[in-house]
């Protein structure tokens, strides 16, 4: 959705992840960029270069916070100290919304630093939604939860991933960060139709989208963020945009990072697919289902 309650009623367009190899280019050349997404955890420190760079970026650009360690799906209660640090950063960046993943990754305070898939059960959906609400109430900022790429499924699951995501966000009354690449990667790993996924989520809750590259192995796809976006993901993105409307979109490129201009050019390719989606939206405004 262009501007909605879940992205703080903003209309941010196409953004890039703020990454260390690009710091000096950005600070010296000051390229025109819609917005930057930062990994919150990299700036939840007390000083030094990370905060110095962040403050200089904030003088020039709009910044949105993306987290990797809230683990809404972990049974652990959110750590109070962690939330306080995160809230201090929210005040510093003035992020209009904040995202983290629909996954688990910590047990009794031990962190895997991975985004692990959840069992898709009603009980898990209820618990996760309650945790999202608690975090949002503390941070006082809209939250979008992101679907992850996965390589395993559980016997105990009672529903599809998109039904689970929908259940969680409806119960938490929060937004979705729709990662189109993750949908594609998981669809290939688990044999579902990615367009069924797109059709199955509440479009009005989508506050942001992610696009990224992945790697094909013989027996599975791995979400590596070290490539340009692949064609089937662009197609899926166009359809997601047709269904949800033009939405704040971010290209994730986290490994084997090329020059700033190369990453930026790749992100701006999204405009072509946005144009396609706009045309398709005019022709067929009501959402329809499509085969992969």
């Amino acid at each position, binding site marked *: 959705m262009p501007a909605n309650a879940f992205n703080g009623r903003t209309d941010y367009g196409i953004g890039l992840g703020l990454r260390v190899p690009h710091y000096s280019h950005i600070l010296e050349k000051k390229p025109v960029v819609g917005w930057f997404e930062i990994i919150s955890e990299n700036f939840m*420190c007390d000083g030094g270069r990370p905060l110095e760079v962040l403050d200089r970026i904030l003088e020039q650009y709009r910044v949105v916070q993306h987290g990797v360690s809230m683990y809404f799906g972990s049974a652990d209660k959110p750590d109070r100290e962690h939330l306080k640090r995160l809230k201090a950063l929210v005040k510093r960046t003035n992020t209009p919304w904040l995202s983290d993943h629909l996954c688990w990754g910590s047990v009794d305070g031990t962190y895997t630093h991975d985004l692990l898939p959840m069992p898709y059960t009603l009980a898990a959906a209820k618990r996760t939604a309650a945790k999202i609400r608690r975090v949002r109430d503390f941070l006082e900022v809209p939250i979008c939860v992101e679907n992850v790429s996965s390589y395993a499924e559980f016997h105990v699951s009672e529903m599809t991933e998109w039904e689970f995501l929908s259940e969680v966000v409806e119960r938490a009354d929060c937004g979705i960060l729709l990662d189109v690449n993750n949908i594609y990667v998981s669809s290939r790993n688990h044999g579902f139709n990615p367009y069924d996924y797109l059709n199955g989520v509440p479009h009005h809750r989508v506050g942001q989208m992610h696009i990224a590259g992945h790697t094909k192995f013989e027996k599975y796809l791995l979400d590596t963020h070290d490539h340009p976006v692949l064609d089937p993901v662009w197609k899926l993105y166009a359809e997601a945009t047709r269904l949800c409307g033009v939405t704040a979109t971010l290209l994730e490129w986290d490994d084997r990072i090329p020059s700033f201009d190369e990453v930026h050019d790749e992100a701006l390719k999204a405009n072509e697919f946005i144009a396609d989606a706009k045309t398709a939206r005019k022709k067929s405004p009501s959402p329809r289902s499509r085969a992969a």
Partner: protein
Amino acid sequence: MHRALVRPLAPGNRMQSRWTDGRPMADVVAEFIKPNDRLTAFDRLEIYNRMYWFRLIDSFYEDNPGLRAALGDRKFNQLAIAYLTKHPSRSFTLRNLCGQLETFIRREPRWTAPHTALALDIARFEWAQTVTFDEAMRPVLTAADFGRTDPSRLRLGLQPHVTLLALQHPVDTYVIAVKKRDSLRSEASNATTSARHAARTRKVARPRRERLWLAVHRVENRMYYKRLEAPAFKILVALRDGQPLVRAVAAAGRGVTPAQVQDWFALWMQLGWICRRK
């Protein structure tokens, strides 16, 4: 699933074939993970088991290049696995992954023997760099602040980003030499075969014993190492530990002139090391 995920890998970076109770791992995993048409439940969990270890080991390597050079690859890798098995991450950020490494090396010297004393020095030095990189910078104390309080009661603080290290080896120059060699190596990966070979095989000699008092610190968000004289080091340690100014200066011992102390303080103030106590 978590217990299976964090178990060390078997040789060849495979998931271990038996569970802790001796049952075949494939049977244990099949109880909770679904297979698909290409991968068994075991294969699917193995993807996560491998990613867990690769991620943590990568981070451990990145934080400890000097320790790796001093121990050699095989021993360093064994240390990494032993440490990470005992001390998995307890923080939301991998920045803190090596926070217990010094304690671990002390408790289990077999992983670093016969170079344990050197390994300890390097591990402390490399951890200090992590701390210095992003610790807080408190408001610096000014000369006016000095004037206001009676020196016998004045308690000064040391900036949190300053780490004081009393060492047995000159690890500052050693780690700098290792990093220089490593960056030459990565440059040489694009060079001719002979240049590449030369860069790969060049060894940095382990440092000999030599007492050293070092501060790892930040100026304008750049990291520096500063060697200190022993009495100056003692004053700073006393200040850091909350001793009032007069007692901290006394910690330097006899043979230190007031002029020396004044010069040191002038330098520390200039470097912004001295702050108000919280």
